[in-house]
């Protein structure tokens, strides 16, 4: 059984090609890319981009522990709908994924229920308590793709240094949430005019920036690769840029909301615009865009963080931090980065695929190489659609982009040659 995806514009960041070609899929793998290819079945991709399945190295599927927000099954359906075929799930579940048995549990659940590839990250410290480092060799052997205490930073520089040294020995990426929680304590949105106007306690940008700098410097001390998560401020981007210039082994991500929205999105006490780090100011949005343009930021990650309608439908201070992002990430990138001409379509595809795959060494992701599993997204870069509250495949609908009209719509998502989404 073969499948031909014909007449599409094929973008393959792995070999820097971008041209009108056909893709032939056989036995779940990419057999050939060329012209005039035909198969038993056909997807006519005229007017569409054909690219490697998207890769998100930062999402929360909440299982085990918070299945009312999301499950591995529902999260994977949301991912497929957004064009993603590989995701890295964070470890701050209940219990947190801090031992090999729990890594195996997530992998087992994903094998049984997920329609896409789920790569669990595991905790960097036991119980995410920032005290003792985890058995990273064991975690990696069980299938953990990275270690991270995402959601929290490690306050002790000594513990973080040892965690980075050990991760480097095991050769597993360290994903770093940078936040001085003494400085951000009690804060709900970015500290500044909007916070002052709304009477909400602020999170100063420095709470993130001082830790981006510290954490990179500790990684340099340890000789380790460190990946900076969800960079949200102008100075944060500049610190990463400078660290790369001096040769630090650092990679970094930002999320669509940090290049699309400012803290004004919180107006009206919209809890769906409450996340950590918080939405910042126009100069920060501009700096994040610049970071993608000059390669300071390696990939777009979603920080998909589902919370139920009930949990979010409370007083602003009491609502949990986080927004969903898997189903809007591609369209937001096309609308806000490609549309205004900040980056090319090819660069957008790279940031959404190969960029993250390389950070986490995800095998066979972000490529359309012959012989690789047929993880493919077909999207119409011109089609517009309006984000609707009831239109999400995710269990949750906590998105600040509801009622936004966006450009770029997924038509097909194939994982291992199987159509896992079509729309």
């Amino acid at each position: 059984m073969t499948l031909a995806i014909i007449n599409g514009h094929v973008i393959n960041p792995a070999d820097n090609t971008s041209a009108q070609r056909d893709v032939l899929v056989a036995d779940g793998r990419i057999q050939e890319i060329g012209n005039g290819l035909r198969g038993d079945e056909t997807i006519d991709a005229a007017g569409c981009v054909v690219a490697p399945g998207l890769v998100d190295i930062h999402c929360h599927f909440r299982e085990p522990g918070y299945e009312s927000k999301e499950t591995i099954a529902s999260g994977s359906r949301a991912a497929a709908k957004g064009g993603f075929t590989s995701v890295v799930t964070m470890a701050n579940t209940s219990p947190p994924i801090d031992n090999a048995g729990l890594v195996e549990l997530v992998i087992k659940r994903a094998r049984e229920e997920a329609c896409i590839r789920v790569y669990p990250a595991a905790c960097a410290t036991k119980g995410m308590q920032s005290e003792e480092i985890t058995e990273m060799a064991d975690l990696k052997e069980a299938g953990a793709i990275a270690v991270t205490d995402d959601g929290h930073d490690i306050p002790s520089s000594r513990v973080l240094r040892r965690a980075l040294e050990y991760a480097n020995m095991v050769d597993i990426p360290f994903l770093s949430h940078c936040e001085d929680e003494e400085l951000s304590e009690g804060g709900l949105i970015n500290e500044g005019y909007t916070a002052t106007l709304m009477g909400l306690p602020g999170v100063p940008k420095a709470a993130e920036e001082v830790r981006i700098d510290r954490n990179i410097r500790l990684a340099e001390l340890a000789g380790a690769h460190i990946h900076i998560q969800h960079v949200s401020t102008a100075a944060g981007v500049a610190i990463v840029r400078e660290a790369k210039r001096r040769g630090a082994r650092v990679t970094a991500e930002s999320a669509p909301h940090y290049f699309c929205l400012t803290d004004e999105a919180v107006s009206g006490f919209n809890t769906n615009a409450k996340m950590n780090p918080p939405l910042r100011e126009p100069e920060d949005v501009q700096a994040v865009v610049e970071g993608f343009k000059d390669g300071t930021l390696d990939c777009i990650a979603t920080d998909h963080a589902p919370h139920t309608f009930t949990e979010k439908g409370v007083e602003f201070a009491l609502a949990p931090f986080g927004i969903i992002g898997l189903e809007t990430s591609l369209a937001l990138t096309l609308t806000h980065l490609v549309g205004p001409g900040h980056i090319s379509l090819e660069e957008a595809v790279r940031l959404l695929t190969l960029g993250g795959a390389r950070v986490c060494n995800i095998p066979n992701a972000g490529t359309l190489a012959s012989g690789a599993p047929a993880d493919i997204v077909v999207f119409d870069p011109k089609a517009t659609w309006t984000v609707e509250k009831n239109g999400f495949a995710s269990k949750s609908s906590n998105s600040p982009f509801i009622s936004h009209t966006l450009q770029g719509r997924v038509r097909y998502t194939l994982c291992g040659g199987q159509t896992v989404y079509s729309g």
Partner: protein
Amino acid sequence: MEAMAPAVWVKKDLIGIRDLSRGEIEMILDTAPQFLAVSKRASGIKKVPLLQGRLVVNWFHEPSTRTRTSFELAAKRLSADTLSIAASSSSSVKGETLHDTLANIEAMRADIIVLRHGCAGAPHILAAAHASHIINAGDGRHEHPTQALLDVFTMRETLRRQRGNPELGLDGLKVAIIGDIEHSRVARSNIHALTKLGASITLCAPATLLPRGVERLGVAQTTRLCEALADADVIYALRMQLERQSRGLLPSIREYVKLFRVDRDSLRYAPDHAIVMHPGPINRDLELSTEVADGTRSVILQQVTNGVAVRMAIMHLLANSGGARRARESQAS
């Protein structure tokens, strides 16, 4: 006044001063004197039947004596039935959401909800989703609109008396607000009200209690009390919470008193006609010396008297104006 086009109150709720136009603020201020007269009736019968048969619910999630009493009196003088729900007896401790609690109160046909809540934005999310009239009696650090309205009413009355001009507005008035701006909803609402009415404002606070970006609200700021007082017509001292010291925002109350207290010494920098105000309750000899609090410049008790009248005016406008009635009909249908 008769010559002007009759303005009609249309808002369902009073959530914040930021949402009000200058015209709406003035409508409340112009409606208040008739209720002040009710409270001061020679007959001693301090009551009008404007809200007879209506239910006003005082729903307080934070302890309050002054504001709750003022609202309760205002409702009673309008002949409304009143009900108080205090935080300790409310459902929040049982895990019920704010929406559910209000839905239950509304199911008992409440007309006006007076909400005090520790979280900024609590009245906003309720007002958007419910049909009853919501009055914000203070939400977190965000707004305390009725306090600001009684404050600007008191400033206007005093100014008119001082200058012998019953038509005078607040344009050009210079107001110094002194104290913990960062945590103060009173300061925020007063900044909005005074700015809209044409007054100019100088904020004066320790650097640790001046919020970021506040200059974008169109105010001046200083950390030197003598500068703030230099040409002030109104000196507004805020209450200093004693816990600010333990949270590391002040080295000591002693030093705050030394640098920021409004007292006989610091008042030497202010013009002779400047009046002294305070939202209450006063920490005597902390932000205000007793001498000044009880002195001839102080209009603090007039603020309290005016507070009842201003709150009567607000309840009357919300419950009896055209826009409000439409909201009530939609609730009934």
